[in-house]
């Protein structure tokens, strides 16, 4: 996967795959078959500046989330329904996501909006486990492996600290 990442766009205006690949001179973005080369840099204040081959310059700030990311550009903040299916949401992290299962923890303080599973449930990979609100965004937390909910500490309405355990999955033998 080095140097190439696949993203799924699922907006009201349609669904498609966007592939970003790094080259020595920048990135190549393939948006549903349309390829664009961009020179991309991170500015000192954290914003991105993208420069297209035709000279167009686009500057903005991206706060990655799942299933949406926030993009601030020209003073407006918009939600972009784009997420990396491979990539754990920015607000949670996996511990020991190996053959034996995974543990999901909060990566920043937030609030549990909804819990979709109970202890003992068996879930498929990709199943919605819970929704965590952090940094103004509702983040869908999904299972990265199929398994059984072996431990559930999150409850709806609960405020969680950074690093707080949310749910553990155990791979079914």
């Amino acid at each position, binding site marked *: *996967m*080095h*140097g190439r*990442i696949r*993203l799924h*766009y699922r*907006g*009201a*205006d349609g669904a498609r795959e*966007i592939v*970003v690949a*790094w080259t020595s001179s920048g*990135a190549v*973005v393939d*948006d549903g078959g349309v390829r*664009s080369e*961009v020179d*991309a*840099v*991170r500015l*000192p*204040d*954290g914003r*991105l500046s*993208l420069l297209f081959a035709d000279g167009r310059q*686009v500057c*903005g*700030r*991206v*706060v*990655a989330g799942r299933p949406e*990311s926030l*993009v*601030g*550009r*020209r*003073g*407006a*903040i*918009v*939600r*972009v*329904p*784009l*997420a*990396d299916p*491979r*990539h754990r949401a*920015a607000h949670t992290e996996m511990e020991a996501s190996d053959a034996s299962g995974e543990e999901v923890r909060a990566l920043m303080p937030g609030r549990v909006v909804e819990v979709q599973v109970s202890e003992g449930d068996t879930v498929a990979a990709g199943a919605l486990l819970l929704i965590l609100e952090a*940094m*103004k965004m509702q983040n869908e937390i999904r299972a990265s492996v199929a398994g059984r909910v072996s431990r559930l500490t999150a409850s709806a309405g609960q405020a969680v600290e950074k690093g707080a355990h949310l749910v553990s999955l155990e791979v079914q033998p």
Partner: protein
Amino acid sequence: MVKPRLLVANRGEIALRIFRACRDLGIETVAVYSDADRKAPHVAAADRAVRLGPAPAAQSYLSVAAILAAAEKTGATLVHPGYGFLSENAAFARACGEVGLTFVGPPASAIEAMGSKTAARQRMAAAGVPVVPGMSAAAASAAEVERFAGEAGYPILLKASAGGGGKGMRQVDSPGEIASALDRVASEARASFADGSVYAEKLIEKPRHVEVQVIGDSRGHLVAVGERECSIQRRHQKVVEECPSPAVSAELRGRMSEAAVAAAAAVGYSSCGTVEFLLASDGAFYFLEMNTRLQVEHPVTEEVWGVDLAAEMIRVALGEPLSFSDLTPRGHAIECRIYAEDPRRGFAPSPGTISALRLPQGPGIRHDMGVEQGSVVPFDYDPMLGKLIVHAADRPAAVSRLARALEEYEIWGVETTLPLFRRLVEDEDFRAGAFDVQWLDRRLAGGFFPDRPPAPEDVFLAAVGLAAEGMDAPSASREEKASLWRRTARRDSVR
């Protein structure tokens, strides 16, 4: 003479605004703060600071005893109330005077006279200031109402004398409607208030809110400094203010200024104050109330009239005469009140931490912010973060400049009213200056924030941003690329 030292019994941007005026004048400053505000910018900006009490305003910014104790402890000689909190509290103004503190504001008697809205209305009518025409007693008959309407003009409003809260009111557009409307309002009034008496008032249709700035010194000089257009309101709360009003000609400005000075003079006013009027579409205007303090929106007047109202208010409190007499307006100014509220969710408060703040720069841009990057916006007070004020040669240029400034503006961490202003500058009515006090509520009811799919540029940014984040960690062989994407170049730098 004792060296002046001024305590601001307030917080946020207005405390900073007054401290800046003090520094411009060479006057020492004293801040007061609640437990929610120990790290607030207004404390860090002052020469002295005193804790008032816990976060709730009743125990801090509204505690007269705590504020007077703070003034005594720090040797303050002047107290400025800002706006809100104790600013229109006559007892506070009087208490300051009793302990030898100079209250930076009008005489307590003027605050009191304008504080009672019905008494003020009668006083203004007596002083020749136009008020909304109305019957002085309950109507005895439909004929009496018809006589009033004939004088005042249609439409009129029938109101239950004992009414309130919008109940027991009915618009009447022609003489033929009077009898049945009177019956209906009277019976509604009997049912709701157990009192069937009804009176009539002229109905001002789709009025504008236009207010006149006045300032007077302690030597009897009292002048008007133009008007402000404050019709862009959400549920009676001002959101955007301008100077001058697009609806006010020089001739009308003259008449409104005269009325405002007469209103202020009638209550023995000195210091800064604002006389609010309803302006009808036919150019008639009617006294609404007087705000006996510095207004949130004073900067638009400062920019257009070239005066420093905050400094002037302090100077006249120190007994100095007004520093100006003949002023002429220049250009056009617009102020946006930036609130920590979510316009897409009914303007629900959005307290939190300002995680990033980028302010526009360049010509014609002024900031009066009460927060900075990293500031926590507490639940306890008015959620205004600060104000953006733009100034340009005329209204179209000011609107363009505002649009540009809003494009440069970035606030992260809390929801703000910035998206509202972005919609406003695109709106044809707003651009034309064609609005009244209910206009924004109508716009908001009509769905002012359509859901649009993200622009291709936004999708691109998100894709590259997500990809950059995904690339940072996994590949060690891509260290150079990763460093390109390092989000936190400044983390290593000294703050």
